[in-house]
């Protein structure tokens, strides 16, 4: 299963540190799995909870969000607000017995190319080991 399953991963990153990490990675010619689709937002703080829920219900096998490290947010507190919203969404999923482990939140700094490609690879492996997201293909959602 894990071999034939090519997960759809959505990687949301902020326009400052998150994408910076990806740019640094490309400058070094580093590789990350091709099934990872990158979605740039200005700041992780600008992500709404519905932005997090919708991909998880509508086709993505996993969603990972990266923004600046605590204290580094370009807008001061966007990443702290994002952390609250991630916590909220994960708690909602958990309390209903839905899989909250398909949503990851990890800081990546501008220069952390390694950390970005590792996150993309590690998360892809993590989702591969979990298998396809059952919600993506259900017709009763």
């Amino acid at each position: 299963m894990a071999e034939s399953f090519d997960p759809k991963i959505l990687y949301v990153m902020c326009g400052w540190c998150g994408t910076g990490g990806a740019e640094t990675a490309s400058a070094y010619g580093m590789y990350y799995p091709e099934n990872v689709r990158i979605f740039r937002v200005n700041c992780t703080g600008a992500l709404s909870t519905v932005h997090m829920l919708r991909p998880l219900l509508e086709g993505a096998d996993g969603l990972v969000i990266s923004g600046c490290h605590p204290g580094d947010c370009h807008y001061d507190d966007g990443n702290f607000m994002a952390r609250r919203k991630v916590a909220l969404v994960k708690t909602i999923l958990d309390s209903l017995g839905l899989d909250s482990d398909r949503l990851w939140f990890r800081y990546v700094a501008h220069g952390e190319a390694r950390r970005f490609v590792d996150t993309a690879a590690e998360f892809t492996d993590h989702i591969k080991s979990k298998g396809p997201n059952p919600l993506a293909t259900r017709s009763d959602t």
Partner: protein
Amino acid sequence: MKGGQVDARGGIQAGITSFLKEALSKGCFDAVMIPTRVPAGDSFAWILTDNEDLVAGASPLPPVMPVQGARALSSITKKGKAPAKIAAVMRPCEVRAAVELGKLKQVDLANVTLLSMDCPGVLELSTYLSDPTKGDSEFSRLLDKWDAESLRPVCRSCTHFSATASDIHLGLLGAQAERLYVMPLTPEGSRVTDALNISADQELDSWQAKVDEVRQKREEQRRKSEVELKERVEGTEKLLATLSTCIGCRNCMRVCPICYCRQCFFDSDALEGEVAAHLSRAERKGSLRFPLDTLLFHLGRMSHMSLSCVECGTCEDACPMSIPVGQIFSHVARRTQELFKYDPGKNRYEPLPLVTYEQDELHDFEQPYVKTYSGKGAADA
């Protein structure tokens, strides 16, 4: 808790209305917002009135909650503070919702005196409507006995049934026959009791003891119903089975006091798409359900408002499909509120969790990165 007493010789409801009448005549406030029986006699509606006769004929503690009081108060004060001093006579969950709406700028509490009372719970709206006379007598029995079987499920396990963030709380529990306790909880409340010459310095031990006793029962019930609910809805299969009869009528959202948005996100163009997009969704799933996005609506609504959910059960009462929405939402709300140690409606000055943050918190939700990942996908060029 300290408080005083007033006379309730005509029964609890009459005791409350005569208290209000007196306060109105003494100028403690200029108008009262209170539930009253509708002309046809088959239900209750909110009125705003400065007429003592209408207050005397009102039903401060109706057997059902057709419209959540905070919604009614919002319709008066959404655009600014009340033009004159209003006393809003509400159940504890309505008071709590009003406090939340205050933080959300949908209610202006500046000129409002919140008045609550011990609440035995309410009956299911549909059951009541099918036989109002029977409902009325069942409710007077409830006011006497304070047991729970015939109440709505959320009321049965409600632990916020007594004093909350109101200015004045009326104690029914533990009071002597034909008496009510009056507890001023804020300076505004004391202003009223002072004007009415109620000395509020009596220690209300018997009230406290009764409240604790009821709360204990409710907590027990809460634990029990929690287990039952999880059994019923937890996990993808069960949750979707529960929501399989949802017709997307949005009633739950429309009657919820916290869902105040004039235009709900889930009814906005944000979720529209090309026919081709729907076809490709249908392709992936084999078949695409209409109305669209049932689960997204419920989970999304939770993510919007569960931190302020006061577990009032109005949503469940309004669901034509008897889906236990209120129970599901309050189950989730308890978890999310616990996460931020937030008790909605308790403190008017405590900020909403999603407008503030701590630097040092929620580390469990950060995915740790300890060492360079060397999984099988990590080959790099």
